[in-house]
């Protein structure tokens, strides 16, 4: 069963981390990634660049137009995400709860269509 876990944030949130805590947070995330890569349940984890560096592509009448910035107007943006391939939804939620950032604000767990079981 495949799930996508999404972590949101913005630069103010990241800037609010004192430097000494940032180092510890990185170590925790690395340990998390290692643990679940080894168990075979983590398919991949990716961090994204700042929303300033995102681009939006719109094609109208066959002509692509590229604009700076993300598509959605929001206060927070997707900052990283990872894919799980695990037993069931309960297991996905259990793993998500161990992600260090879940203790600071929250993480989202999304089932991947056709790849995740239906919740009973």
């Amino acid at each position, binding site marked *: 069963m495949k799930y996508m876990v999404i972590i949101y944030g913005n630069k103010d949130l990241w800037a609010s981390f004192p*430097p000494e805590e940032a*180092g510890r947070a*990185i170590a925790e995330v690395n340990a998390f990634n290692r643990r679940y890569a080894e168990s075979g349940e983590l398919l991949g984890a990716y961090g994204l660049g700042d929303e300033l560096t995102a681009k939006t592509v719109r094609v109208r009448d066959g002509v692509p137009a590229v604009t700076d910035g993300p598509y959605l107007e929001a206060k927070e943006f997707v900052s990283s995400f990872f894919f799980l391939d695990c037993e069931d939804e309960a297991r996905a939620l259990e793993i998500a709860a161990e992600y260090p950032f879940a203790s600071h604000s929250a993480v989202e767990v999304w089932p991947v269509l056709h790849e995740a079981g239906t919740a009973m």
Partner: protein
Amino acid sequence: MEDLLRRLTPQVLAALLRRHGALDLCEDAVQEALAAAAADWPVKGLPDNPQGWLVTVARRRLVDLVRSDAARRRREERIVLGAPPSEFLQHIDDVEGSGRDDTLLLLLLCCHPELTPPSQVALTLRAVGGLTTAEIAAAFFVPEATMAQRISRAKQRIRDAGASFAMPPPEQLESRLRAVMHVLYLVFNEGYTTNSGPDIHRPDLTREAIRLTRELLRLRPDDAEVEGLLALMLLTDARRPARTTPQGELIPLAAQDRARWNQDAIREGVDLVTAALRRGPIGAYQLQAAVAAVHDEAPSTEETDWAQVLALYETLDRVSPNPMATVNRAVAAAMVHGPSSGLDLLASVETDERIAGHHLLFAVRGHLLDMAGDALGAAESFSEAARRTNSAPEKRYLAGRARDLRAGAVDPSRH
């Protein structure tokens, strides 16, 4: 043993290519032979002639590959099966002695102009470097399937382009060699300044780039730019031990403990660049290596010969004009003539679309504004740079500079 296998990879591949042509099949066959050796040799011991062993096994695999795919690939079948079977099993004596040119031909083939740079890099690492697809995928943080596809598409393109395992015509050789050097430099940079991921260094890639560039210099001993490229890599890599904290945070050049720089690498790099500049003609890699040499030989930032750095960057900007060289020149100009001179130079390239929005532009402006005493302006620029880099350690370092400047607590040792 891993080193031995990696060293033999291009020779074995070349032996197959010279006889059978098709890069895609030969390359797959060599990978399988390498895997067989990795499984076999530790148990049964090293064969008397490792290279001959690999060529024999690879040729058998090649026949299998062709046979299993026979209907679809009649052309290869004719090529391989047209030769008497004894040829595949004969003792290999036509391999020794020809390794020199073969590696160069392979490099040229892998860096074929029909391929995009990422494909050239991947194919070079696999066919010449002897890395497995999994290793290359891990080095670039992409799934193995993605990398396998990239490599297989690259081989397909080379086949479609009708490229042959032969020396390009003389009028093309120079530009084809430039492409090889560019690929090796990309591999080095990818290892030294990772563009993605949690770690700032991936020494496996820098080591591989240096090894292959050494090999290229052995094959082209009179090429000053190859010499310059190797010097540049060695002189840059020499600072690696001092470039990060044990926690993996970046330390800027000015704050590095120079006692930890690798003196052997510096000596070798300085000798190489000195010889290259004497040999000429002058080129971009030699000039960048010369700048690196000035830094590596200076006891501190203050005692660095900035006038010479500035002169070298001015020459570089003339020899191979590019906005990044101008950004570097701006730093040197600020050290020689004061920050406003550097800021003027920066302003001249800020609208150049090749560099507009690049995080280094903002980082350098932050540095120069800080030199000029404009702490808040500097903090703004560093924040902007932090948001624009895609390297996590760089992001943390730049955000840290901004924070320190805003707090008015600038550590003077960081200048």
